[in-house]
């Protein structure tokens, strides 16, 4: 099993229409001048797992197995092993990542991972808003809250906003750190892993 600290991304999206995205699109179009040319808005949860990680098949199985990451009955998950892998975005979509400053870590998911694999990893989660803007509308004006009629997706007083220019970075939320290996290792290889 490959070892060493790296970061993968899980892009998770509801299979049905996402109520948050539907509401955000409706309110933005109705109330924000910067959103007049907003053609489409989707919401994905972006989960980053950093640490000594197994290969793709085992990662997919681990992510699929725990509700800490996604619900396979309601959501689809696209695993991205690095920048070379595609993101589940349309060609005309731009993406704004929003996450809680200092609150992006998911302790319960990290505990689950340690319990299942014996490895210490860092799990971070944010929301990736995929927007199709027309007529050169400015993504930052729409995303960053400045007042009642300016911005919606990110309150900069508690949240971080990251905009992808061209290639979507991986990692995007935090730099790869060197997490300690669990003191008590209990490796459990999911069946069928390569």
């Amino acid at each position, binding site marked *: 099993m490959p070892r060493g600290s790296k970061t993968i991304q899980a892009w998770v999206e509801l299979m049905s229409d996402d*109520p*948050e995205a539907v*509401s*955000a699109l409706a*309110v933005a179009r*109705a*109330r*924000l001048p910067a959103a007049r040319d907003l053609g489409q808005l989707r919401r994905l949860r972006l989960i980053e797992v950093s640490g000594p990680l197994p290969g793709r098949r085992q990662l997919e199985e681990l992510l699929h197995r725990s509700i800490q990451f996604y619900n396979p009955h309601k959501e689809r998950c696209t695993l991205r092993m690095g920048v070379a892998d595609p993101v589940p975005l349309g060609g005309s979509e731009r993406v704004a990542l929003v996450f*809680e*400053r*200092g*609150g992006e870590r998911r*302790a*319960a998911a990290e505990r689950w991972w340690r319990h299942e694999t014996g490895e210490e990893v860092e799990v971070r989660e944010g929301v990736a808003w995929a927007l199709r803007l027309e007529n050169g509308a400015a993504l930052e004006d729409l995303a960053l*809250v*400045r*007042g*009642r*009629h300016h911005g*919606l*997706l990110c*309150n*900069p*007083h*508690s*949240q971080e906003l990251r905009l992808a220019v061209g290639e979507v970075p991986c990692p995007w939320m935090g730099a790869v750190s060197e997490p300690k290996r669990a003191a008590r290792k209990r490796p459990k290889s999911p069946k069928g892993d390569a």
Partner: protein
Amino acid sequence: MSVARVGVVQFPGVNCEAESVRALGRAGLEAEIFRWTRRAAELRDFQAYLLPGGFSYQDRVRAGALAAKDPLVDVLAGEAERGKPVLGICNGAQVLVEAGLVPDSGRVELALARNRMPDRDGYYARWIYVRIEPSGSLFTRGLTPGDVLPLPVAHGEGRFTSATAGRMASLLATGQIPLRYCSAHGEVESGFPVNPNGAEQAAAAVSNARGNVLALMPHPERAQDLGALARCVAGPWDERRAQAIARRDVDARGPGLALFDALSRHLKES
């Protein structure tokens, strides 16, 4: 003299409107639930406003974020500018912060961020204590700085914070933090559990500079009956609770009514 009318603004997902109406009524005010489906201009007929707690628009995007864009809030902002009182409780406070009605400028200067608690995450509900601070807020008029009120909190995003360094400290200095989390004895503490969410300056509420708009995280409307106080509440309010229960008067006036009484006094004087 006619009784002042207070509009209790209900967005979809708000769930504390009934007890808010009752608390306002006990303070001698006429309260009416104003649902989001009514014409925004009708809001101008009221002399004061209350945004109750709950989960407006299911907290979609961010707590209070969608309601803050509602046309009703534009009317509220205009009426607040004219000096009418506006009280936002819990989710209502989140709406006021997201709308930039507090601390003042019309720009969004603060956030009510996720609670920050050691070894815990998410929603937190408990009785806490707040201390009245010197301020120009009409909602604490008549109360003595240093007075301690036990109130319940119940929220997942209640941490007042600003990305602008020193902003919360400056709000404290200018009297725009009229209530701070404290111990049962009135000592302000920044650590959990006295400060239940990690709010900067232990702020439980933030006011605008004029003092007529207040974003308040604890729920005074849930502390309007002495019999509702939890057994863990200590100090003089515990004694009053015990006496009320002994005389089978559980609906006796509780600590939360102090803020509604202050609003009532203000409206009668103005």
